């Protein structure tokens, strides 16, 4: 039961992008088109779930076992960077056009604070392995949801009559704010 709650909490109630404001960079950068944002979401979800699992193992069998919790941040960053490298190689091989459309935002997953935040939260809240994994997948799903909603709105905005001073970035940020406001409706629903 707790596994499911952790998942829903990470995906919707405590959405990483819209309530913690983590991972805003790709949220604004890769949300112009729905298909690209879905792919970005999937890539990030993959990195998040793998990172959650691997960092749990590292945390428990290396850091805690040898009493080295002060190395947490450094090891987590190494792990995430390696995973992103792997994903980058894989996407480059399997879909060159996706590789080009994600552009700089693909290697930037490395420094996506949503992922580091996820691993640190999981350690802080002392999740079990399965809970960590569920937390990772949930956070990834939440990230994808936020990205896709944003991309959907922005695709419609292309045809909207936006006042000239608000065109582009200001309008995007306004929409992001309203989206965050909407997600505040879930606040306090779960406390996991």
């Amino acid at each position, binding site marked *: 039961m707790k596994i499911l709650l952790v998942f829903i909490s990470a995906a919707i109630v405590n959405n990483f992008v819209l309530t913690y404001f983590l991972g805003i960079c790709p949220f604004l950068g890769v949300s112009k088109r729905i298909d690209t944002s879905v792919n970005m979401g999937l890539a990030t979800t993959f990195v998040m779930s793998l990172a959650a699992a691997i960092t749990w193992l590292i945390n428990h069998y290396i850091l805690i076992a040898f009493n080295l919790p002060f190395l947490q941040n450094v090891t987590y960053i190494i792990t995430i960077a390696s995973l992103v*490298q792997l994903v980058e190689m894989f996407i480059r091989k399997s879909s060159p056009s996706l590789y080009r459309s994600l552009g700089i935002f693909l290697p930037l997953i490395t420094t996506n604070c949503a992922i580091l935040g996820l691993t640190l939260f999981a350690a802080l809240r002392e999740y079990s392995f399965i809970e960590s994994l569920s937390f990772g997948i949930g956070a990834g799903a939440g990230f994808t949801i936020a990205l896709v909603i944003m991309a959907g709105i922005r695709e419609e905005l292309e045809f909207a009559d936006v006042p000239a001073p608000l065109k582009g970035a200001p309008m995007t940020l306004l929409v992001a704010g309203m989206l965050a406001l909407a997600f505040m409706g879930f606040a306090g629903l779960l406390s996991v």
Partner: protein
Amino acid sequence: METGLVISIVAMGGLGAFFAVFLTVASQKLKVEEDPMVEKIMEALPQTNCGACGFAGCHALAEKIAAGQAPVNGCPAGGQDVADQLARIVGVESMKAKRLVAVVLCRGGNAEAKRSVVYKGDRTCAAADLTGGEKDCAYSCLGYGDCVEACNFEAMAMNENGLPVVFFDKCVGCGACARACPRDIIEMHTEDRRLFVYCRNRDKGPQAKKACKVACIACRLCVKDCEVEGGIEIKDNLATINYELCPQDDKPTRRCPTKCILFGENERITSASFYAGGMQKVSGD
């Protein structure tokens, strides 16, 4: 204290080494062979992804050029400069770039074409075409400037007569305007073509004449005046130039009663001449 130091160094070193080995293996398995030439070609291309070359964007063309499956002058938007650069990169003799230029094949502006309806809908050609537009001629320019909107290179504008003009010096030949035109009035032609029939009306002569002062009425005078047999033919009540045969001179234009076949007209308008002293009337008479 010292053991803590040793342990942390070993732990971090071990993790680093593990990931290094893991990534090395992965990079061997997932290796992508990319021709370094593709990147160089990409840098030389305009990177507007306009699609004029017929491939899916600049990168696709770069790959084809690197593989020798496309000519170095394959980028119409880049013109001679890009063709020369690409030839140097690929290491072949430069070819003359075939520059394409858009030609608007309708001269029935507000002054020439008869209008008998008022259109109050969405002011785009695509929407106006659904209702038939304002002009009587069903083949005419609708005049709402979808083509000008489509142009990424500031090479088109609407003149005061309500017709789009192409700036001969600015046009890169990407064909975006031709695709945007719902009535296919805009055609892409190579630079060396200078003789055009500026009308697409395929109605019978009297009917065409009634709708527009500068319509082709299929009188056959240009057909007779063309020096080569078959250089100009009448197809569907419309004079049609066969560019393979027809010599590019002004002989066929001399006796045209409506002045819809013209020689060298499209080269007259450049962005400088258009914007100098307001707008310039495109109508010849």
